[in-house]
């Protein structure tokens, strides 16, 4: 089911350097999309546009059939998308439970337990958790929200191989499990990319379907 539609999306910086050139594509719930490409090709920019952190220079992005510019970018971010960052970006004065509660009114522990945290870890200072545990909290925070789209920017970039594998499983689960989220991952990791349902490459501002 198409939840996200990009129509002729272009993006240029102030110096008119074109980063994205007329990108049109459609993304569905229940699938994992991996976007590959060399550094500086515009992957994060594309993710920012989809996530409503910035507006395209031209073209439009539709989420559930509505133009996100018209809905309001802050509203779009609140209702439709959840971000997972490479550097976790947890709020450091909140424990894992409180970080999860930022996006949800539901009890936090069941979600944290699902991503592998114990009760004691759920109450610990987030800075005293390992990188893998912090990323699990970040994923739990994203999963706890009602958003149908998960946007992950290099989610395993700072993690060792074993931990990265666990995180990848969680992302796949959020798309293929009951939640049926649309997961869009920007990554350099071939391991992660191989497990995606759809593989896209961003090259010279254009989005190519690889798989």
């Amino acid at each position: 089911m198409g939840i996200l539609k990009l129509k002729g999306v272009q993006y240029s910086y102030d110096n008119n350097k074109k980063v994205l050139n007329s990108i049109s594509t459609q993304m569905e719930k229940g699938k994992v999309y991996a976007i590959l490409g060399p550094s500086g090709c515009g992957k994060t920019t594309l993710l920012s546009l989809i996530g409503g952190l910035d507006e395209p220079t031209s073209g439009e992005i539709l989420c559930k059939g509505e133009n996100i510019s018209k809905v309001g970018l802050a509203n779009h971010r609140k209702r439709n998308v959840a971000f997972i960052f490479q550097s976790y970006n947890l709020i450091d004065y909140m424990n894992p439970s409180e970080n999860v509660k930022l996006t949800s009114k539901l009890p936090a522990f069941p979600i944290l337990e699902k991503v592998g945290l114990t009760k004691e870890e759920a109450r610990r200072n987030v800075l005293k958790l390992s990188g893998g545990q912090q990323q699990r909290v970040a994923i739990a925070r994203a999963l706890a929200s009602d958003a149908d789209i998960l946007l992950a920017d290099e989610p395993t970039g700072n993690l060792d191989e074993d931990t990265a594998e666990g995180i990848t499983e969680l992302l796949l689960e959020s798309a293929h499990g009951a939640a049926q989220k649309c997961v869009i991952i920007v990554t350099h990791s071939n391991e992660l990319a191989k497990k995606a349902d759809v593989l896209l490459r961003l090259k010279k501002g254009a989005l190519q379907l690889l798989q």
Partner: protein
Amino acid sequence: MSLWKRAYLHTVRKKGKTILMFCILLIISTLILTCLSIQAATDTAALNIRKSLMGSFTINAKHIDMQLGDNVVSEILNTNGITPNYNLRSYYHAEYRSLDGQTLKITTDGAVEVPEGYEYAGKIVSNAHSDVDTYFSEAGFELIEGHHITTDDSNVIIISETLASQNGLSIGDHLVLGAIEETDYQVEARIVGIFKAAIPLEPGIAPSYDLYENVSFSDNKTYSQLYYDDGNNHYQYGDFYAADPADLDTIISNVKTISGITWDECIITKNDVDYQNAKTTLEALQNLVTIIILVVIAISVVLLALVLSLWIRNRIHETGVLLAMGFSKRNILMQHIVEILMIAVLTFALSFATSSVIAQSVGDRLLEQATANDQIVVTSLTGQETEKNTVDTSVSLTSIEIAVSLLDLLLIYVIGTGIILLSVLLAAYPIMRMKPKEILIKMS
């Protein structure tokens, strides 16, 4: 999660920052509350001083033929803002004689001259109320026997102790006052009081009739009978008192509209030096306190804005994450404001205690500063002389009672909240004007 919960968690978990902000806000609020209470105390002192000093004005009608009459005086006393207290006086010279027409002895030792025709004469001050005459109130004359002259008296006189002893006169005796040059004009007066001059007049500066020993005080009727034959009362000078010295100019303007006297030929002198002196001190203190309040507020805003801009810059990750989650910039800004306000609520309340401790001593220091160069100019009520004295502390503001009130505390909550809002807005502006993506780029 609501911004209140987020603000609460930040305040509770970031203890170092909270304690530092607590100290900054406590210092700021104590300083401002102290200044506010000093300002309130000076306002109260100003009001009390105005009420107690009662500025006055003097109408000099000496050079007008009929001078001041009873009708005009009555209308002046009915003017708004004038108190019932007043004095009407005249200055004249008269020859002292006994009832059998013999001239009385006067003092001539120490006189610079004994003018021709004044060999037995002295200066007579006629008064509606002799007790408020400047000879008694300022020059050190002291009534040692009898009573002062009031409006109930007629054809009475208060003479000096020396004049009485030289001529064997005492209370209840009568003497005759004769007009100089007009030998037929004379009035009999009964002695009702005897005075002495506590501070003697310096020898060789005054003619014989002005020597303190030869000065006497009569009622106004005596003066009018001696110099006018129309049966009316005439007064050279009128002293009238305003309930509030601040209204003196308005009262004088209103008085000048009264008909029956040629105001252009009158000289009206304001006698509000006491009030002006106290006012100068108060204004200096009020200005000083106002300047200090403004400086403290400005420094507080700058200091808070600097500290907060550092903290908010360090929280750019958090700002980016919250924006990515769909929290609005306004919501994030409000969180910063609420965090500071949560601490401020406590510090402002505590500042009530701290400023209560220091307000009095700070106020005394400021008062010292404000009164350091005070000078009083005393104008004699005779309207004839003006002399400059150094500070007379009895009419100057020498102390103020400072107490921190609940109203001041309420005001510190208002001013403090204003300072916090302005500081947070200034500090957060550079971050808040950025697009979410720019913030996230800065994060990484």
